[in-house]
C-alpha cells in the first residue's frame, strides 16, 4: 500500500455545532463533511466575500490600500509596487515586541498594528515600508529571501502586514508558524517563489501577481517569474481565514 504524503482525517463522535445565538453546551464541537479533501480541493472562486467574519473588508485592504494598486473582486490578481527585503526577516523586525500590547481583535488596535508593519527593519532600509505618520503602506507586495517570518509565533506579524494594506508576500521560503498564521488569519498570501526574487527586484518596481497562473510579472524590469502554487491554502486565505473558510464550505454553520 503506497503511503500518501498528505491525508486528512476527521474527528470521531461529533455532535452538531449549535448556533451562536443560543448558549453553547459545554461539549460543543464541529461537524465535518465525510470527505473534507473533496471540499478543500474544489476551488470555487467566490466573488462576494463575507465581511462579517473579518474585522476589515477585503476591498479596503487590497483594492484601496494605495492609488497605484488594484485587485479584481475575485482576488486572482494583485498589482502595485513591491518592497524588497532580505533573508531571515524575523517577527521582531515585522512587528517589534513593544507593539504587542495592541490586541489584533480590536479594530482600532488592528489599524495601529498596520501602521507599525516592518518598522523594526534596520535603518539600512532607507525607504520605509510605511511612511512615518501614515497608517497604510503603498506597497502591494513584499518580496523576500529565505525563512521569512522566523522567530516568534506572534500572530501580530501577519496581522500587521495585512492591516498595513499589503496583499501578498513572495518569499523564497517561510518559517512555519508565520506561514500557518498567515493562512489561519487570511491576512496575507504567503507565496513562494522559485529562486531568489529578492535579488532580481528592487523596492518600487511595479509588479503583478497572477494567482491562477502562479506567476509574478515585474513591469519595471520586464521579467516574469514562476511562483509555487499556493494549493489548498489559497481558498482558506481568500475566504478570510480558517473560520470563514470553515463556514463557507459548510464545515461549521454560518453565523
Amino acid at each position, binding site marked *: *500500500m503506497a*503511503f*500518501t*504524503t*498528505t*491525508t*486528512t*482525517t*476527521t*474527528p*470521531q463522535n461529533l455532535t452538531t455545532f449549535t448556533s*451562536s*445565538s443560543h*448558549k*453553547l453546551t*459545554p461539549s*460543543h*464541537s*464541529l461537524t465535518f463533511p465525510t470527505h473534507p479533501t473533496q471540499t478543500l480541493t474544489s476551488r470555487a472562486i467566490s466573488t462576494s466575500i463575507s465581511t462579517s*467574519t473579518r474585522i476589515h473588508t477585503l476591498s479596503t485592504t487590497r483594492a484601496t490600500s494605495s492609488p497605484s494598486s488594484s485587485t479584481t473582486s475575485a482576488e486572482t490578481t494583485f498589482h502595485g509596487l513591491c518592497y524588497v527585503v532580505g533573508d*531571515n526577516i*524575523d517577527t*521582531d*523586525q515585522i512587528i*517589534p*515586541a*513593544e507593539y*504587542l*500590547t*495592541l*490586541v*489584533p*481583535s*480590536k479594530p482600532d488596535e488592528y489599524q495601529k498594528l498596520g501602521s507599525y508593519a516592518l518598522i*523594526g*527593519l*534596520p*535603518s539600512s532600509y532607507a525607504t520605509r515600508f510605511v511612511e512615518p505618520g501614515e497608517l497604510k503602506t503603498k506597497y502591494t507586495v513584499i518580496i523576500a529571501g*529565505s*525563512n521569512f517570518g*522566523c*522567530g*516568534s*509565533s*506572534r*500572530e*501580530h506579524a*501577519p496581522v500587521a502586514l495585512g492591516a498595513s494594506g499589503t496583499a501578498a508576500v513572495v518569499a523564497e*521560503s517561510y*518559517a*512555519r*508558524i508565520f506561514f*500557518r*498564521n498567515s493562512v*489561519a*488569519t487570511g491576512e496575507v498570501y504567503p507565496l513562494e517563489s522559485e529562486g531568489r526574487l529578492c535579488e532580481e527586484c528592487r523596492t518600487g518596481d511595479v509588479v503583478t501577481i497572477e494567482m491562477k497562473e502562479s506567476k509574478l510579472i515585474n513591469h519595471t524590469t520586464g521579467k516574469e517569474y514562476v511562483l509555487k502554487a499556493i494549493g489548498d491554502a489559497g481558498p482558506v486565505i481568500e475566504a478570510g*481565514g*480558517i*473560520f470563514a473558510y470553515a463556514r463557507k464550505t459548510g464545515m461549521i454553520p454560518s453565523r
Partner: protein
Amino acid sequence: MASSSSFLAPSSTSILHSKKDLGLSAFTSTSSISSQRCQKTGFRRICCSVAAPQQSQRQPSTTGSVKTAMTMTEKILARASEKPYLTPGDNVWVNVDILMTHDVCGPGSIGIFKKEFGNDAKVWDREKLVIIPDHYIFTADERANRNVDILRDFCHEQNIKYFYDIKDLSNFKANPDYKGVCHIALAQEGHCRPGEVLLGTDSHTCTAGAFGQFATGIGNTDAGFVLGTGKLLLKVPPTLRFVMDGEMPNYLLAKDLILQIIGEITMAGATYKSMEFVGTTVESLNMEERMTLCNMVVEAGGKNGVVPADSTTFKYLEGKTSLPYQPVYSDEQARFLSEYRFDVSKLEPLVAKPHSPDNRALARECKDVKIDRVYIGSCTGGKTEDFMAAAKLFLASGKQVKVPTFLVPATQKVWMDLYSIPVPGAGGKTCSQIFEEAGCDTPASPSCGACLGGPKDTYARLNEPQVCVSTTNRNFPGRMGHKEGQIYLASPYTAAASALTGYVTDPREFLQ
C-alpha cells in the same frame, strides 16, 4: 535507525547545497557540510558526524515492523489523534491536553474565540487551559496592564482553574498566585507530562518537549479554535535525531549544546521538523537543562523538540502532578530524516553573535569584543539551574563584575530559590549573596523582562546601541529594544565570565 534522507524531500535542504567534497566518502553530503562547518569555526577535529545509513530504501509494505515503527513525536500525535499509525506529512486532528496563553496573545485569542463561537461560548475544558501573565507585567504601560485585566475577566467568566494572576505590580510577592515566565511555570506547576500534547501561544512552548511530550507554539487564531473545540489540525513532522554522548565538561551547559546544533543546521535547518535529543549526555542533564535544550528548537525553525522521559523526569514530576501520564519512546526501527552525532567532550563554550541565533562562534575567539552589559534571565537562561551556574562561576573567580549585570529570575519560585538554596561549595552562601558580592544588580521581579525588549520602561531593556551578552534565545536586530543593539547569546557560565572581564569571555578562564 536513521533513515535514508530521501525518505522525504525536506524543503529546507540548505545544508545539502554545498558542493565541496572533504573526502569523507563514508558520509552523505549532509555530513560533509557539517564537517565543513566545524572546520569553519576553527575546530581541528570533526566533532560532529551526520549519518544516513547505507541501507537501501525499503518499501514500507515489505516488512511488518517498519510499517508500524514510529518516532516519539509520531507516537504522541498518533495517540492524540486516536490513530494507530501515522507517518510524517499526515494531517490529523489532534486532541489538545493543555493550551497555554499569556498576556500578549491571550486577549487576541480570547477575542477570536468570542467572535467565532459567540460571546456566551464556554471553553472546551476549564481545566485544560492555563493562563499565565508573564510578558509585560512590571510596567506603567496602560495597554499592557489592561491586557492582564482582560485575562482576569475571562478567567472569572469561564471559571478557569489555572490562572496565575497578578494585581499588585509594585510588589510581585504580594501576589500569591503569580508565577512568572509561562514555560517555566508550566513545568513547575506540573502541567507538562510525558506523552501529552501541549500547545501555547508562544514560540518557546517547545520548551515542554523536555518532558517527552509534543509541545509547539501556535498563533491567536489557532488558539481561538482550540479554545472552542479542544482540537487542532496538525501536520505530522519528520524527526531529526541528535545523539549526544560523552561526559559533559564542567565548563559546558545545555545552552552550548543547542547553540552548537543551531549553528550546525542553521536557522531553517529544522523547519517543519521535530528535533529529538538522545544519548548519554542528554540522559545526564537535569530537567532544567533539558528545557534549555528544547527551548531553542524554534530558533532552528523546529516544530517541536523531544527528550525521552526517564527517571529524572519522573522524579521531577513527583508531587507536581496528580494526573496519570503515559510516556512514549521512539521505536528501534523508527525512521529519522537525519541523525547527528556529537562527542560532547570535544565541544567548547559558544556564543551566537549578532544578529542571528545560528551565527555561532567560539567564545574564546570573541575575547576582543568589548561589552556594555550582561543579562541573565528568560525561559532560556533564567531558571534556578541557570543562576546556580552563574553563581558557581562568580564564586570560583571571587571577583567583581566590570559591567552592569542584570538578573531576572523566570518565576517567583526561581526568585525564592536564589535567596534560599545554598550554592554547592559556597559554605552556605546563596546565589543572591554571591551575586551581591560580585556586584550584580539585585534580582528583579520575575517575568520575561527585557528578553524581547517590551514597553520602554521595562527593566534592563536595551535602550541604547550597546553590546550585551545574554542568556536569552534571540538576538535579531532590535530584539532587546534598540535596533542597533548587539546581542551575544551565551550560556550562564559564559555570561558570568563576560561580566567579570567586560569582554566576551570563555568560562574556562574561571572554571577549571
